[in-house]
């Protein structure tokens, strides 16, 4: 049996960018703010977004290159991904959506380059174990349960209305 790339659709469950502010610090010549979603971060899809502002004027820097390099403390596993404005909903931010492949401690180096300036900002996070699939998908199964419940109620009401009509004395 020929094997092809396998993808896990569950890992694509959507997250918005921004989210929890992880750090906001001055890294001359910028003020850099890093946000993550979801909270808490779990093994699976995460969104890391970075806001780069001119430290003096607060003006957003929109043409930097931002690279995220992650390392898993326990296994040494590394993940590199580029954060871009195209991936962000908030187009002032640089966002990267990617799969965190394992729970545990992760250190992140945020590499920023703009013109002649470059900075590396280090930070870390702990990724929790992924939620059980049902905890993620239940809102999408709820409509079936509700629809069947509404159908059952509808049938009951019809039945009782039918019975009431049958019980009414015939006036003619």
């Amino acid at each position, binding site marked *: 049996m020929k094997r092809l790339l396998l993808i896990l659709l569950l890992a694509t469950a959507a997250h918005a960018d921004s989210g929890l502010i992880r750090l906001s610090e001055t890294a001359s010549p910028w003020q850099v703010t890093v946000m993550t979603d979801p909270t808490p971060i779990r093994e699976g899809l995460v969104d890391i977004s970075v806001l780069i502002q001119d430290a003096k004027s*607060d003006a957003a820097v929109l043409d930097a290159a931002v690279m995220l390099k992650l390392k898993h403390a326990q296994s040494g596993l590394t993940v590199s991904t580029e954060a871009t404005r195209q991936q962000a909903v908030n187009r002032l931010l640089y966002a990267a959506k990617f799969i965190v492949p394992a729970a545990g401690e992760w250190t992140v180096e945020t590499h920023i380059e703009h013109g002649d300036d470059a900075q590396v900002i280090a930070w870390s996070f702990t990724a929790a174990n992924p939620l059980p699939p049902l905890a993620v998908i239940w809102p999408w199964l709820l409509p079936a349960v509700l629809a069947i419940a509404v159908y059952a109620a509808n049938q009951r009401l019809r039945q009782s209305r039918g019975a009431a009509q049958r019980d009414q004395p015939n006036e003619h």
Partner: protein
Amino acid sequence: MSDVTRAILSSWTIDPWPLVLAVVSIAIYWRGWRGLSRTQPKRFGRWRLTAFIAGVFACWVAIASPLDAFGGLLLQVHMTQHVLLMMIGPPLLLLSYPGIPLLRGLPRTARREWLGPFLAAPTVRRWFHFITHPIFGLSLFIVATWLWHVPVMYELGLRSSFWHEVEHGIFLGTALLFWWPVIQPWPSTPTWPRWMLIPYLLVADVQNTVFSAIFVFINTPIYGTYAASPALFSIDALDDQATAGAIMWVVGSSTFLLPVGLIIRRLLTPNLVPVPTPASGKTPVDISLTVLGDSSSRRPAHGRSDLLRMPILGPALGSLRFRRAVQWVMLGIAAAIVLDGFLGPQMSPMNLAGILPWTHWRGFVVIALLVAGNAFCWTCPFMIPRELGKRLFNPTRRWPRAIRSKWLAASLLLVYLWAYEVFSLWDSPWWTAWVVLGYFAAAFLVDAFFRGAAFCRWVCPIGQFHFIESMASPREVAIRDADVCKSCTTHDCIRGGPGGRGCELDLYLPSKQGNLDCTWCMDCVRACPHDNVGVLTRNMTDDVVFGGWRGALGQIGSRVDLAALATLLTFGAFANALGMVGPVLDFEDGFAASLGLASSLIPASLVLIVVTCLLPLIVLPVVAWIAMRVSAMDIGLRNLSCRLAFALVPIGFSMWVVHMLFHFFTSLGTIVPVTQRVVIDLGGNAGDPAWILACCLNVPDWLLPLELLLLDLGLVLSVVAIHQVTRTVTQRRTAAAAVILSIPAVALLILGVWIVLQPMQMRGTILP
């Protein structure tokens, strides 16, 4: 425009679900409003429609526009979002008098059969009276406003998109209840005298003033998130907070005090507009069937929407010339598939034969079945060799009586499912080309020998798929008015006449029910001299529930061959999907290795046979037997099993749709580079093939929710169908019997959910 402004203006959160909800609700309102604006032009002027659209738009802007993208960084933006959801959107929605137009805009069956019993139920009316009472609305509005702005709750909304959506939903819901007595949308009647709304609105304004003043005057940031936020646009956290309070204050007070002024003016000039008086009874709203225009219980003959009456689409669908033109185009595509399959690269995602039939065509087929019906038999290119065979040989033989059943087609279908899985047909352009060629040859030969549509009716596995799955489609080819058929003397729809040939599938329109065996060829439409055939809407469960007489199809509820075909397709949907998920592939590989086999042909065959044949053969009769024991039924075990097989068609169909759409949406772009490659191979210039489109696109994040919702739909339709079947065969313990009979449907849903949660093969794409 500066780069920053451009960036801000392009920060839209285009989540498909709210957008779909907004568009659908506007479409439903518009449909209902159109009729009402003709019968009650004063009450339903154009501005009501405008108010509804504006209300929906305000709510959508709140959650989709840059307001949402920036709400997490600036409190004032977040507060503007809340203002739209609480003070702007809801009053506009209520000003449109949404209840009746929305109800009238729904399909008649949904209105009468689904919602009717609820609208008429005293309990529901009492509940509605309770929740629209001013005291309830005001209290809830105030509690929601304050509670969700307590730091713990507010931060919860900021950190979790789920709770953020709950928060917004609660704001919108409570605001609708709060504004209800103020606007008192027709046909509701007020609970309080009008003057009482003055203190009502003033109380709301006072609490809003206190609430806003806290934000304006407090000199520490209330929310940790905004305190830690970077000073976007040089706005510091305290300024941001004060501005947020000011927005709430100004907009809130304006929206609360404006109606106060209007009410006072009305009270002081009583002749201006008649003031509604409080209801004497307990129900403030009378959404009776009379108000809805549904007082007549007789369904009008032309009450169903008819695709053939639609502009452009209707004439196109009914035109034989247009159909032939489309079939020739499809034949050209089939020829390209065959040629590329034989001559092109043998890597399936690079070959027309590897993508068009398996990814694109199947995707379009299931979409057409889901939104309309068997539209793809209408475009079928195999019709051309069939017609050729008929012209050349003018056959008069009838299909042999001994095989005048679906057993042959069901066997061919099983062989096809098996070959697809074990020989990975989808991954072999060469084999695909042979399959297409073989199909053309079979269509030609069968119809050259036998009269009528013998190939479609008794042989074609693809046609059987369309026939069975279109049982759950929302449209059917059917007569428009039974009375016209009663007085018809020619019956050209079956015999043929000046308008063209009659039904080749022997379906006599007055006794035709549903889509089984109907190729949507429209011959009957053209043949009928009374223009009495349409492509009409119907309940998606009608076809699978009706087990009675269907003309040439006979007593369908007792046709084991048809039930077997339906079962094969229902369980085959799951077997086919199981063949592409990681754990099953691992199991098959492991099983093959443990037997020392070089390929997983035997394990894959076993999985298919067990799931498509053995499992239903055991489960359906057992479940039917238990249900018969629980409730004394007026039906035999065989017939009940057959009826159950048909009732399970929707859940099987939903699995096919899920599976096909997964490949369709993950591999849609492949057609671009493959077409470029073909053009280049033919010596043309189409630029460098954009192979990036065939390998590396992100899987859309709405795909999983869509798949789950489709499975939901399948389950609900199957359960409803099972209940309706149960009602027709027993009067005792109907609910218990229906629950037992629904077990296979629920089990299939669970299996379907498990499948979509597994790692899946990305067929039709190139490995990055």
